[in-house]
């Protein structure tokens, strides 16, 4: 057993740090440090800087244009990005639909979609949840009907998706659609790629309690999608969706980003001299340490050729609880300065200099982060998974 990374891994870490010091776009960095919201262009610039370095496919095999990094390297990369306070990577292309395409797609689909994901020339969004299908995702109703027109096959899509993150920015959406409603509900689902410019698609904003426009409703009315956009086999969409979820879970703990937030909070609580807050922050630091080493245990198992399985649901549950706890303590530290809301920088930013700078986005982050225990399979669903697959209940 050994706590430190190998010298090779440490060299790699330094390479990531060099990149973040020199090539992470300065204007994005400044906005993050000031707690200001990012524009679409900012987010694209940030991703393009990774593409230029050849690191966009950080979790992809070399044969599809990825880095081919080891699990330890992927861990270090994500951790360093978090520690440096980088905006979270938009996962829909690189961590979600990308791996589904290179694993289950045909050659034509790989050639067509993968390079744009790696260059961040296509912004993807995810069409999973529906108004009537949240945790019970397999009950989804958005209908895809196969037709033939002038000798070509198309799917005609009718229905709606909801909670679609940043659909207003997206070029393409990957959707779970129902191609068959006769059998078991999981068996009639297919995985379809849809161009957001297709006629019949309407995106309507959903404003969340932080005042932000991050998620949307997406409506499909007789949207015509070429059948060649179907991934794998019709009716196998549920299998691909489950594969995608497993792919998504690693790195979900967000330890690096939480550690950065914690360091700032430690300074703030000490400056305030509030012993009660200091004790709460200390407890949170222990929680983060426990989460970090839980992730490293899973990483070690992976590196040793093992398969971590349902235990990784712990990372989702504790990682998100910690993210929320951090925002709660920032609000506590901000005191009454937490409540001025809706400043000149748009949603949730404080009117400067209304209070200490850490109070600027304390409450908007608190409100925004309520989502993390709900999305990606709610924490209650994660507990069902552990109960069934780990405890065998």
């Amino acid at each position, binding site marked *: *057993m*050994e*706590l*430190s*990374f*190998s010298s090779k*891994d440490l060299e790699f870490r330094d390479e990531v740090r060099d990149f973040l010091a020199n090539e992470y776009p300065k204007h994005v960095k400044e906005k993050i440090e000031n707690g200001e919201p990012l524009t679409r262009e900012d987010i694209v610039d940030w991703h393009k800087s990774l593409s230029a370095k050849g690191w966009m496919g950080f979790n992809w095999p070399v044969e599809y244009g990825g880095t081919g990094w080891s699990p*330890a390297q992927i861990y270090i990369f994500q951790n360093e990005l978090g520690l440096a306070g980088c905006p979270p990577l938009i996962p829909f292309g690189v961590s979600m639909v990308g791996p589904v395409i290179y694993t289950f797609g045909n050659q034509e689909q790989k050639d067509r979609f993968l390079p744009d994901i790696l260059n961040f020339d296509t912004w993807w969004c995810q069409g999973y949840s529906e108004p009537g299908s949240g945790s019970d995702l397999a009950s989804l109703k958005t209908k895809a009907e196969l037709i033939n027109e002038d000798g070509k096959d198309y799917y005609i899509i009718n229905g709606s998706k909801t909670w679609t993150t940043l659909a207003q920015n997206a070029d393409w959406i990957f959707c779970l659609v129902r191609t068959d409603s006769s059998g078991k509900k999981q068996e009639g689902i297919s995985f379809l790629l849809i161009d957001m410019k297709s006629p019949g698609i309407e995106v309507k904003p959903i404003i969340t309690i932080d005042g932000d426009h991050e998620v949307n409703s997406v409506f499909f009315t007789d949207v015509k999608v070429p059948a060649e956009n179907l991934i794998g086999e019709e009716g196998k969409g549920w299998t691909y969706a489950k594969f995608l979820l497993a792919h998504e879970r690693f790195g979900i703990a967000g330890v690096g980003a939480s550690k950065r937030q914690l360091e700032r909070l430690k300074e703030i609580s000490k400056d305030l001299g509030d012993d009660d807050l*200091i*004790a709460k922050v*200390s*407890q949170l*630091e*222990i*929680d983060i*340490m*426990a*989460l*970090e*080493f*839980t992730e*490293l*245990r899973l*990483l*070690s*198992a992976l*590196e*040793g050729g093992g398969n971590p399985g349902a*235990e990784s649901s*712990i990372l989702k*549950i*504790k990682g998100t609880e910690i993210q929320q706890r951090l925002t709660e303590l920032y609000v506590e530290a901000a005191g009454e300065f937490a409540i001025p809301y809706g400043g000149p920088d748009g949603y949730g930013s404080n009117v400067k200099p209304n209070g200490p700078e850490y109070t600027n986005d304390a409450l908007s982050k608190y409100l925004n982060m309520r989502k993390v225990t709900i999305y990606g399979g709610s924490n*209650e669903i994660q*507990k*069902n998974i*552990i*109960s069934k697959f*780990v*405890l*065998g*209940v």
Partner: protein
Amino acid sequence: MNLNFSDEQNLLREQIQKFCNSDYDFYDRENFINTESGFDPEKWKLFAEQGWLAMPFSSESGGFDFGPIELSILFEEFGKFLVLEPYLSNVVLSGYILDNSSFDKKNDFIAKLISGEEQISLAYMEQNRNYEFKDITCLLEGTDSLTLNGTKNLVLNGSNADHYLVTVNHNDVTTIVLVSKDTDGLSINNFKTVDDRRISQLNFENVGINADQIVATGDEAEQLIKDAINYGTLCVSAEAVGCMESCYLKTVEYTKSREQFGQPISNFQVLQHKMVDMFIEAELCKSLLYKSMIDMHENNDSKYRSVSALKSQVGLSGKKVGEDAVQLHGGMGVSEEMSIGHYLKRFIAIDSQFGNSHFHLKKFNNS
């Protein structure tokens, strides 16, 4: 970075598991709780024969050079079965101090510890000292002929010990002396703890001490005490992790067999999620355990801080897991004849030992 156990370490765990599974029946254990010693001397002999009592000692002292990782494995497995035998007081606490001291007669004492012939307890606690081990009030006075006066409390396994390692104040210098149980002027009061262990109060009244009984003095003595206690803290924390694992496994088993409303109560989601919470607490504590034991193994500066994080967390988590295990066992959970309540009592004892959760949270923050 590698948090996987070696093949040798996995074998050690299997060996201990095999012993506990076949020889550590809970009802059998109950018989020894009420004997004078409070443990099974035959098992202690077996520990010696298996070489377990030699594990952490250096090879020069006749040991196996095993360290914090192997001891954590041992204690985790012991925790699962609520093992009573006094390994902590003899091998971990007294053993660490003797083995790492410059005491010239240490080899004789270590040999008898390893063979199981004799037992030695560490007497470091005093009244109103609240986990701080400074300002010792037991006074060793004189220059040529030395005399010891004072009281030591909560001496683990004190009633079974043949000798005591006693921390004393000698002209404001922390000193450790070795005293035999039948020394003139030493009177011993024995007590039971909530978790069926044995502890003693030692009263020293003009006890004569010879220079050759001095094990360590000054900085050496303070460092030895600090490190022995850190080691002990790691071990009871590992034990708590083992206890937690048993608690959630036993609770899952119980709720699957207990039927109410015409079905196993494990069908109820409210109970499922509670059991998942127990599992998560255990896993997170295990992660902190891994961090601590490797920090100690690598002798990193962060080892005291890691152990404080671990001890603080197992104090909280242990009680939570223990209380939930009792709750989910219903009335059976509060029955003395079931093992589950004994785990809760062990969690409470572990939390209070070597500094409770609150103490270690503060220590963590201040370091």
